[in-house]
Protein backbone atom coordinates (compact mmCIF):
# COMPACT_ATOMS: atom_id res chain seq x y z
CA UNK A 1 0.00 0.00 0.00
CA UNK A 2 2.68 2.43 0.99
CA UNK A 3 4.61 1.65 -2.18
CA UNK A 4 1.88 3.11 -4.37
CA UNK A 5 2.16 6.42 -2.67
CA UNK A 6 5.92 6.82 -2.82
CA UNK A 7 7.88 9.40 -4.70
CA UNK A 8 5.94 10.24 -7.84
CA UNK A 9 2.67 11.38 -6.37
CA UNK A 10 2.55 15.04 -7.37
CA UNK A 11 2.16 17.42 -4.47
CA UNK A 12 -1.37 18.65 -4.69
CA UNK A 13 -1.12 21.81 -2.70
CA UNK A 14 -4.74 22.72 -3.29
CA UNK A 15 -6.00 19.42 -2.00
CA UNK A 16 -3.70 19.84 0.93
CA UNK A 17 -5.06 23.24 1.75
CA UNK A 18 -8.60 22.15 1.05
CA UNK A 19 -8.25 19.43 3.65
CA UNK A 20 -6.97 21.81 6.21
CA UNK A 21 -9.96 23.80 7.29
CA UNK A 22 -7.79 25.76 9.66
CA UNK A 23 -5.34 26.83 7.00
CA UNK A 24 -5.25 30.39 5.80
CA UNK A 25 -7.44 30.86 2.77
CA UNK A 26 -5.65 30.56 -0.51
CA UNK A 27 -5.67 33.95 -2.08
CA UNK A 28 -5.42 34.04 -5.83
CA UNK A 29 -5.05 37.00 -8.06
CA UNK A 30 -7.42 36.74 -11.05
CA UNK A 31 -6.05 34.55 -13.82
CA UNK A 32 -3.04 33.61 -11.83
CA UNK A 33 -2.46 30.29 -10.17
CA UNK A 34 -0.05 31.44 -7.56
CA UNK A 35 0.05 29.90 -4.13
CA UNK A 36 0.28 32.53 -1.48
CA UNK A 37 -0.16 30.56 1.65
CA UNK A 38 1.65 31.60 4.72
CA UNK A 39 3.63 28.95 6.52
CA UNK A 40 2.05 30.40 9.64
CA UNK A 41 -0.97 28.28 8.73
CA UNK A 42 0.90 25.43 10.35
CA UNK A 43 1.85 25.28 13.92
CA UNK A 44 5.39 24.20 13.30
CA UNK A 45 6.98 21.56 11.07
CA UNK A 46 5.32 18.59 12.80
CA UNK A 47 1.91 20.07 12.07
CA UNK A 48 2.86 20.58 8.42
CA UNK A 49 4.17 17.02 8.24
CA UNK A 50 0.90 15.71 9.58
CA UNK A 51 -1.05 17.73 7.02
CA UNK A 52 1.17 16.30 4.28
CA UNK A 53 0.79 12.78 5.66
CA UNK A 54 -2.98 13.15 5.34
CA UNK A 55 -2.61 13.76 1.62
CA UNK A 56 -1.30 10.20 1.28
CA UNK A 57 -4.93 9.26 1.94
CA UNK A 58 -4.13 6.13 3.87
CA UNK A 59 -4.27 5.16 7.48
CA UNK A 60 -1.61 7.08 9.33
CA UNK A 61 -0.14 3.75 10.47
CA UNK A 62 0.60 2.86 6.86
CA UNK A 63 2.05 6.04 5.48
CA UNK A 64 5.40 5.90 3.76
CA UNK A 65 7.91 7.97 5.68
CA UNK A 66 10.17 8.19 2.62
CA UNK A 67 7.30 9.61 0.58
CA UNK A 68 6.48 11.97 3.38
CA UNK A 69 10.06 13.19 3.57
CA UNK A 70 9.98 13.90 -0.14
CA UNK A 71 6.65 15.71 0.15
CA UNK A 72 8.04 17.89 2.90
CA UNK A 73 11.25 18.71 1.06
CA UNK A 74 9.29 19.53 -2.10
CA UNK A 75 6.95 21.75 -0.14
CA UNK A 76 9.88 23.65 1.38
CA UNK A 77 11.44 23.98 -2.07
CA UNK A 78 8.21 25.37 -3.52
CA UNK A 79 7.87 27.73 -0.64
CA UNK A 80 11.38 28.95 -1.28
CA UNK A 81 10.54 29.47 -4.96
CA UNK A 82 7.45 31.42 -4.01
CA UNK A 83 9.65 33.36 -1.65
CA UNK A 84 7.53 32.56 1.38
CA UNK A 85 9.02 33.40 4.71
CA UNK A 86 10.22 30.18 6.24
CA UNK A 87 10.83 30.06 9.96
CA UNK A 88 14.11 28.50 11.03
CA UNK A 89 12.52 25.39 12.53
CA UNK A 90 11.02 24.44 9.15
CA UNK A 91 14.50 24.56 7.64
CA UNK A 92 15.98 22.61 10.54
CA UNK A 93 13.33 19.94 9.99
CA UNK A 94 14.09 19.97 6.24
CA UNK A 95 17.78 19.41 6.93
CA UNK A 96 17.02 16.61 9.36
CA UNK A 97 14.62 14.97 6.90
CA UNK A 98 17.17 15.24 4.09
CA UNK A 99 19.63 13.46 6.36
CA UNK A 100 17.01 10.85 7.20
CA UNK A 101 16.24 10.34 3.52
CA UNK A 102 19.87 9.76 2.57
CA UNK A 103 20.17 7.33 5.47
CA UNK A 104 17.09 5.42 4.40
CA UNK A 105 18.44 5.09 0.86
CA UNK A 106 21.77 3.68 2.03
CA UNK A 107 22.33 -0.06 1.95
CA UNK A 108 21.54 -1.54 5.34
CA UNK A 109 25.11 -2.33 6.38
CA UNK A 110 26.32 1.22 5.69
CA UNK A 111 23.65 2.86 7.81
CA UNK A 112 24.80 5.01 10.71
CA UNK A 113 23.70 4.63 14.31
CA UNK A 114 20.96 5.30 15.38
CA UNK A 115 19.60 3.61 12.33
CA UNK A 116 17.47 5.67 9.94
CA UNK A 117 14.72 3.10 10.37
CA UNK A 118 14.62 3.89 14.05
CA UNK A 119 14.52 7.64 13.35
CA UNK A 120 11.75 7.13 10.81
CA UNK A 121 9.81 5.05 13.29
CA UNK A 122 10.16 7.77 15.91
CA UNK A 123 8.82 10.36 13.48
CA UNK A 124 5.98 8.02 12.65
CA UNK A 125 5.11 7.63 16.33
CA UNK A 126 5.19 11.37 16.89
CA UNK A 127 2.79 11.96 14.02
CA UNK A 128 0.44 9.27 15.30
CA UNK A 129 0.44 10.79 18.77
CA UNK A 130 -0.24 14.29 17.52
CA UNK A 131 -3.03 13.03 15.27
CA UNK A 132 -4.54 11.04 18.14
CA UNK A 133 -4.65 14.11 20.36
CA UNK A 134 -6.04 16.27 17.58
CA UNK A 135 -8.89 13.82 17.06
CA UNK A 136 -9.41 13.52 20.81
CA UNK A 137 -9.66 17.31 21.04
CA UNK A 138 -12.25 17.40 18.26
CA UNK A 139 -14.31 14.66 19.90
CA UNK A 140 -14.10 16.46 23.22
CA UNK A 141 -15.35 19.71 21.71
CA UNK A 142 -18.21 17.87 20.01
CA UNK A 143 -19.56 16.52 23.28
CA UNK A 144 -22.74 17.84 24.86
CA UNK A 145 -21.34 20.89 26.58
CA UNK A 146 -22.93 22.84 29.39
CA UNK A 147 -24.09 26.18 28.12
CA UNK A 148 -24.26 25.02 24.51
CA UNK A 149 -26.05 21.69 24.37
CA UNK A 150 -27.26 21.12 27.88
CA UNK A 151 -28.22 23.73 30.43
CA UNK A 152 -28.16 24.06 34.13
CA UNK A 153 -30.37 26.29 36.24
CA UNK A 154 -29.14 29.82 35.60
CA UNK A 155 -30.26 31.33 38.89
CA UNK A 156 -30.71 28.68 41.56
CA UNK A 157 -31.94 29.74 44.98
CA UNK A 158 -28.75 28.60 46.62
CA UNK A 159 -28.38 26.48 49.70
CA UNK A 160 -28.02 27.44 53.30
CA UNK A 161 -24.40 27.93 54.25
CA UNK A 162 -22.82 27.92 57.66
CA UNK A 163 -20.81 31.07 57.05
CA UNK A 164 -22.45 34.50 56.85
CA UNK A 165 -20.24 35.89 54.12
CA UNK A 166 -18.92 33.74 51.37
CA UNK A 167 -15.72 35.18 50.06
CA UNK A 168 -15.00 34.26 46.52
CA UNK A 169 -11.71 33.98 44.72
CA UNK A 170 -10.44 31.33 42.34
CA UNK A 171 -6.99 29.82 42.10
CA UNK A 172 -6.66 31.61 38.81
CA UNK A 173 -7.36 34.96 40.51
CA UNK A 174 -4.71 34.13 43.06
CA UNK A 175 -1.88 33.20 40.74
CA UNK A 176 -2.78 35.91 38.27
CA UNK A 177 -2.57 38.47 41.08
CA UNK A 178 0.83 37.14 42.07
CA UNK A 179 2.00 37.32 38.48
CA UNK A 180 0.91 40.92 38.28
CA UNK A 181 2.61 41.88 41.53
CA UNK A 182 5.79 40.32 40.20
CA UNK A 183 5.42 42.02 36.86
CA UNK A 184 4.75 45.33 38.58
CA UNK A 185 7.43 45.23 41.25
CA UNK A 186 10.18 43.18 39.64
CA UNK A 187 13.16 45.31 38.71
CA UNK A 188 12.54 45.86 35.04
CA UNK A 189 15.41 45.35 32.74
CA UNK A 190 15.36 48.13 30.24
CA UNK A 191 17.63 47.43 27.37
CA UNK A 192 18.63 50.87 26.23
CA UNK A 193 20.31 51.08 22.86
CA UNK A 194 23.94 51.66 23.66
CA UNK A 195 24.82 55.30 23.56
CA UNK A 196 28.32 56.54 23.83
CA UNK A 197 28.50 58.79 26.84
CA UNK A 198 31.06 60.05 29.28
CA UNK A 199 29.61 60.19 32.74
CA UNK A 200 30.22 63.09 35.06
CA UNK A 201 32.37 60.90 37.33
CA UNK A 202 34.48 59.81 34.40
CA UNK A 203 34.84 63.43 33.29
CA UNK A 204 35.91 64.62 36.74
CA UNK A 205 38.44 61.80 36.92
CA UNK A 206 39.77 62.56 33.46
CA UNK A 207 39.97 66.35 33.84
CA UNK A 208 41.57 65.97 37.30
CA UNK A 209 44.24 63.70 35.88
CA UNK A 210 44.96 65.78 32.82
CA UNK A 211 44.98 69.08 34.72
CA UNK A 212 47.70 67.67 36.97
CA UNK A 213 50.15 67.81 34.09
CA UNK A 214 48.94 71.15 32.64
CA UNK A 215 51.00 74.04 33.96
CA UNK A 216 49.72 76.59 31.48
CA UNK A 217 46.15 77.63 30.67
CA UNK A 218 44.66 75.05 28.41
CA UNK A 219 41.49 75.05 26.27
CA UNK A 220 38.74 72.79 27.68
CA UNK A 221 38.51 71.19 24.23
CA UNK A 222 42.02 69.84 24.60
CA UNK A 223 40.83 67.71 27.51
CA UNK A 224 38.43 65.76 25.34
CA UNK A 225 39.33 62.34 23.92
CA UNK A 226 41.01 63.12 20.63
CA UNK A 227 39.72 60.45 18.29
CA UNK A 228 36.29 59.89 19.77
CA UNK A 229 33.08 59.36 17.90
CA UNK A 230 31.24 62.71 17.45
CA UNK A 231 28.44 61.51 19.72
CA UNK A 232 30.86 60.62 22.49
CA UNK A 233 32.67 63.92 21.95
CA UNK A 234 29.47 65.86 22.53
CA UNK A 235 28.74 63.92 25.70
CA UNK A 236 32.37 64.35 26.81
CA UNK A 237 32.21 68.09 26.23
CA UNK A 238 29.08 68.47 28.32
CA UNK A 239 30.37 66.26 31.12
CA UNK A 240 33.80 67.85 31.09
CA UNK A 241 32.26 71.32 31.31
CA UNK A 242 30.26 70.32 34.40
CA UNK A 243 33.34 68.55 35.77
CA UNK A 244 35.30 71.77 35.31
CA UNK A 245 32.73 73.74 37.29
CA UNK A 246 32.77 71.09 40.02
CA UNK A 247 36.60 71.08 40.23
CA UNK A 248 36.63 74.90 40.30
CA UNK A 249 34.13 74.82 43.17
CA UNK A 250 36.43 72.48 45.04
CA UNK A 251 39.24 74.96 44.43
CA UNK A 252 41.34 72.51 42.46
CA UNK A 253 41.36 74.45 39.18
CA UNK A 254 40.87 77.96 37.85
CA UNK A 255 38.74 78.86 34.85
CA UNK A 256 39.16 81.79 32.50
CA UNK A 257 36.99 82.97 29.62
CA UNK A 258 37.56 86.10 27.46
CA UNK A 259 33.91 86.68 26.60
CA UNK A 260 30.58 84.88 26.28
CA UNK A 261 30.91 81.72 24.09
CA UNK A 262 34.67 82.20 23.88
CA UNK A 263 36.86 79.15 24.53
CA UNK A 264 37.17 78.14 28.17
CA UNK A 265 40.65 77.89 29.60
CA UNK A 266 41.60 76.03 32.71
CA UNK A 267 44.68 75.30 34.79
CA UNK A 268 45.40 73.67 38.09
CA UNK A 269 45.51 75.90 41.15
CA UNK A 270 48.94 76.01 42.70
CA UNK A 271 49.61 72.96 44.88
CA UNK A 272 46.38 71.22 43.97
CA UNK A 273 48.16 68.23 42.47
CA UNK A 274 49.80 67.53 45.83
CA UNK A 275 46.58 67.83 47.81
CA UNK A 276 44.94 65.30 45.50
CA UNK A 277 44.73 61.59 46.20
Amino acid at each position, binding site marked *: MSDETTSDTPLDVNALLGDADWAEPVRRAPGEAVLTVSVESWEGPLDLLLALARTQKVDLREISILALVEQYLRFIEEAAELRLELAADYLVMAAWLAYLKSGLLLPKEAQPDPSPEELALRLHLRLQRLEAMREAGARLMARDRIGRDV*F*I*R*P*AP*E*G*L*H*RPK*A*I*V*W*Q*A*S*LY*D*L*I*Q*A*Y*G*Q*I*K*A*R*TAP*RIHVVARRLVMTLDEAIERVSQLIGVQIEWADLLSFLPAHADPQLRRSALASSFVATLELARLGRIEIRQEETFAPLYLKATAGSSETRT
Partner: protein
Amino acid sequence: MTLTMAARLVEAVLFAAEGPLMPQEIARHAGLEESVLPHLTALADHYEGRGIELVERGGRWHFQTAADLSYILRREREEPRKLSRAAVETLAIIAYHEPVSRAEIEAIRGVAVAKGTLDVLMEAGWIRPAGRREVPGRPLIYATTNDFLSHFGLSSRRDLPGIDDLRAAGLLDPIDLAMEAMESQSLLEKDEDED
Protein backbone atom coordinates in the same frame (compact mmCIF):
# COMPACT_ATOMS: atom_id res chain seq x y z
CA MET B 1 -44.44 8.90 33.69
CA THR B 2 -43.46 8.94 30.08
CA LEU B 3 -43.59 12.38 28.58
CA THR B 4 -44.21 13.38 25.01
CA MET B 5 -41.43 15.21 23.20
CA ALA B 6 -43.38 18.46 23.54
CA ALA B 7 -43.75 18.04 27.31
CA ARG B 8 -40.06 17.21 27.64
CA LEU B 9 -39.16 20.38 25.79
CA VAL B 10 -41.47 22.44 27.99
CA GLU B 11 -39.88 20.92 31.07
CA ALA B 12 -36.35 21.64 29.81
CA VAL B 13 -37.18 25.23 28.81
CA LEU B 14 -38.67 25.96 32.23
CA PHE B 15 -35.68 24.42 33.96
CA ALA B 16 -33.13 26.45 32.00
CA ALA B 17 -35.07 29.73 32.14
CA GLU B 18 -33.62 32.78 33.83
CA GLY B 19 -37.01 33.63 35.31
CA PRO B 20 -40.75 32.86 35.16
CA LEU B 21 -42.07 32.49 31.59
CA MET B 22 -45.40 33.04 29.90
CA PRO B 23 -46.84 30.09 27.91
CA GLN B 24 -46.19 31.88 24.59
CA GLU B 25 -42.54 32.39 25.55
CA ILE B 26 -42.23 28.74 26.52
CA ALA B 27 -43.73 27.69 23.18
CA ARG B 28 -41.32 29.94 21.30
CA HIS B 29 -38.24 28.67 23.18
CA ALA B 30 -39.36 25.06 22.74
CA GLY B 31 -40.12 25.59 19.05
CA LEU B 32 -43.73 24.44 19.49
CA GLU B 33 -46.69 25.59 17.42
CA GLU B 34 -49.33 24.12 19.70
CA SER B 35 -50.53 25.52 23.01
CA VAL B 36 -48.26 24.49 25.88
CA LEU B 37 -50.92 24.91 28.57
CA PRO B 38 -51.97 21.24 28.64
CA HIS B 39 -48.32 20.26 29.04
CA LEU B 40 -47.90 22.79 31.83
CA THR B 41 -50.85 21.52 33.83
CA ALA B 42 -49.79 17.91 33.28
CA LEU B 43 -46.29 18.71 34.49
CA ALA B 44 -47.62 20.65 37.48
CA ASP B 45 -49.69 17.60 38.47
CA HIS B 46 -46.72 15.36 38.00
CA TYR B 47 -44.53 17.43 40.30
CA GLU B 48 -47.20 17.54 43.01
CA GLY B 49 -45.73 16.28 46.28
CA ARG B 50 -42.18 16.26 44.95
CA GLY B 51 -39.10 18.20 46.03
CA ILE B 52 -39.69 20.63 43.19
CA GLU B 53 -42.99 22.19 42.19
CA LEU B 54 -44.18 23.88 39.04
CA VAL B 55 -46.15 27.00 39.88
CA GLU B 56 -47.97 29.72 38.00
CA ARG B 57 -47.87 33.32 39.26
CA GLY B 58 -49.68 36.01 37.31
CA GLY B 59 -49.65 34.02 34.08
CA ARG B 60 -45.96 33.13 34.33
CA TRP B 61 -44.66 29.67 35.10
CA HIS B 62 -41.58 28.56 36.96
CA PHE B 63 -40.09 25.71 38.94
CA GLN B 64 -39.32 26.29 42.58
CA THR B 65 -38.23 24.29 45.57
CA ALA B 66 -41.28 22.79 47.34
CA ALA B 67 -42.53 25.33 49.83
CA ASP B 68 -42.37 22.97 52.82
CA LEU B 69 -38.69 22.28 52.12
CA SER B 70 -37.65 25.89 51.82
CA TYR B 71 -35.78 25.72 55.13
CA ILE B 72 -32.86 24.13 53.27
CA LEU B 73 -32.53 27.31 51.25
CA ARG B 74 -30.55 30.38 52.07
CA ARG B 75 -32.66 32.63 54.26
CA GLU B 76 -31.18 35.96 53.50
CA ARG B 77 -30.07 36.17 49.96
CA GLU B 78 -26.53 37.31 50.72
CA GLU B 79 -24.44 37.93 47.68
CA PRO B 80 -21.24 35.98 47.55
CA ARG B 81 -18.65 38.69 47.85
CA LYS B 82 -15.72 38.93 45.54
CA LEU B 83 -12.40 39.40 47.25
CA SER B 84 -10.91 42.84 46.57
CA ARG B 85 -7.87 43.19 44.40
CA ALA B 86 -5.80 44.22 47.41
CA ALA B 87 -6.95 41.14 49.32
CA VAL B 88 -6.22 38.74 46.45
CA GLU B 89 -2.74 40.21 46.10
CA THR B 90 -2.08 40.03 49.82
CA LEU B 91 -3.30 36.45 49.92
CA ALA B 92 -1.09 35.56 46.96
CA ILE B 93 1.97 37.03 48.70
CA ILE B 94 1.23 35.18 51.93
CA ALA B 95 0.74 31.94 49.99
CA TYR B 96 3.99 32.31 48.08
CA HIS B 97 6.17 33.66 50.88
CA GLU B 98 4.70 32.39 54.12
CA PRO B 99 5.25 33.05 56.91
CA VAL B 100 5.45 36.78 56.28
CA SER B 101 4.93 39.91 58.32
CA ARG B 102 2.81 42.80 57.20
CA ALA B 103 5.91 44.90 56.52
CA GLU B 104 7.26 42.14 54.28
CA ILE B 105 3.97 41.95 52.38
CA GLU B 106 4.14 45.68 51.86
CA ALA B 107 7.71 45.46 50.64
CA ILE B 108 6.74 42.85 48.04
CA ARG B 109 3.51 44.53 46.97
CA GLY B 110 5.09 47.95 46.91
CA VAL B 111 1.88 49.26 48.44
CA ALA B 112 0.71 49.63 52.04
CA VAL B 113 -1.58 46.87 53.34
CA ALA B 114 -4.67 48.01 55.16
CA LYS B 115 -5.48 46.31 58.46
CA GLY B 116 -8.93 45.45 57.08
CA THR B 117 -7.39 43.45 54.25
CA LEU B 118 -5.78 40.96 56.62
CA ASP B 119 -8.97 40.85 58.69
CA VAL B 120 -11.02 39.86 55.66
CA LEU B 121 -8.59 37.08 54.79
CA MET B 122 -8.67 35.87 58.37
CA GLU B 123 -12.47 35.97 58.42
CA ALA B 124 -12.57 33.97 55.21
CA GLY B 125 -10.49 31.41 57.08
CA TRP B 126 -7.65 31.47 54.57
CA ILE B 127 -4.85 32.94 56.67
CA ARG B 128 -3.83 32.66 60.31
CA PRO B 129 -1.30 34.34 62.57
CA ALA B 130 1.72 32.05 62.73
CA GLY B 131 3.75 33.45 65.60
CA ARG B 132 6.10 36.37 65.66
CA ARG B 133 9.28 37.14 63.78
CA GLU B 134 12.21 37.35 66.22
CA VAL B 135 13.38 40.75 65.06
CA PRO B 136 13.02 44.13 66.75
CA GLY B 137 9.34 44.91 67.24
CA ARG B 138 8.54 41.16 67.07
CA PRO B 139 6.01 41.62 64.24
CA LEU B 140 3.19 39.13 63.82
CA ILE B 141 3.70 36.78 60.89
CA TYR B 142 0.98 35.18 58.76
CA ALA B 143 0.58 31.86 56.99
CA THR B 144 -2.17 30.15 54.99
CA THR B 145 -4.56 27.57 56.43
CA ASN B 146 -5.80 24.15 55.36
CA ASP B 147 -9.06 25.81 54.35
CA PHE B 148 -7.03 27.91 51.97
CA LEU B 149 -5.61 24.78 50.33
CA SER B 150 -8.98 23.09 50.02
CA HIS B 151 -10.75 26.21 48.74
CA PHE B 152 -8.20 26.66 45.98
CA GLY B 153 -7.99 22.95 45.22
CA LEU B 154 -4.33 22.63 46.14
CA SER B 155 -2.87 19.59 47.81
CA SER B 156 0.06 21.62 49.09
CA ARG B 157 1.61 25.04 48.65
CA ARG B 158 4.15 23.41 46.39
CA ASP B 159 1.39 23.10 43.79
CA LEU B 160 1.47 26.84 43.23
CA PRO B 161 3.04 27.68 39.89
CA GLY B 162 6.54 29.15 40.16
CA ILE B 163 7.76 32.29 38.50
CA ASP B 164 8.88 30.43 35.38
CA ASP B 165 5.49 28.77 35.06
CA LEU B 166 3.75 32.10 35.46
CA ARG B 167 5.93 33.61 32.80
CA ALA B 168 5.25 30.75 30.42
CA ALA B 169 1.52 31.00 31.03
CA GLY B 170 1.68 34.67 30.09
CA LEU B 171 0.84 35.83 33.58
CA LEU B 172 4.00 37.84 34.09
CA ASP B 173 3.51 40.10 31.14
CA PRO B 174 3.18 43.68 32.13
CA ILE B 175 0.05 43.90 30.00
CA ASP B 176 -0.15 47.60 30.15
CA LEU B 177 2.37 49.20 32.40
CA ALA B 178 0.66 52.55 32.50
CA MET B 179 -2.64 50.92 33.47
CA GLU B 180 -0.91 48.86 36.10
CA ALA B 181 0.80 51.89 37.56
CA MET B 182 -2.49 53.75 37.69
CA GLU B 183 -4.21 50.81 39.25
CA SER B 184 -1.62 50.38 41.97
CA GLN B 185 -1.74 54.11 42.57
CA SER B 186 -5.47 53.98 43.19
CA LEU B 187 -5.01 50.87 45.33
CA LEU B 188 -2.55 52.81 47.43
CA GLU B 189 -5.01 55.60 47.88
CA LYS B 190 -7.79 53.20 48.70
CA ASP B 191 -5.68 51.31 51.21
CA GLU B 192 -4.73 54.53 52.89
CA ASP B 193 -8.34 55.53 53.11
CA GLU B 194 -9.19 52.22 54.71
CA ASP B 195 -6.65 52.75 57.49
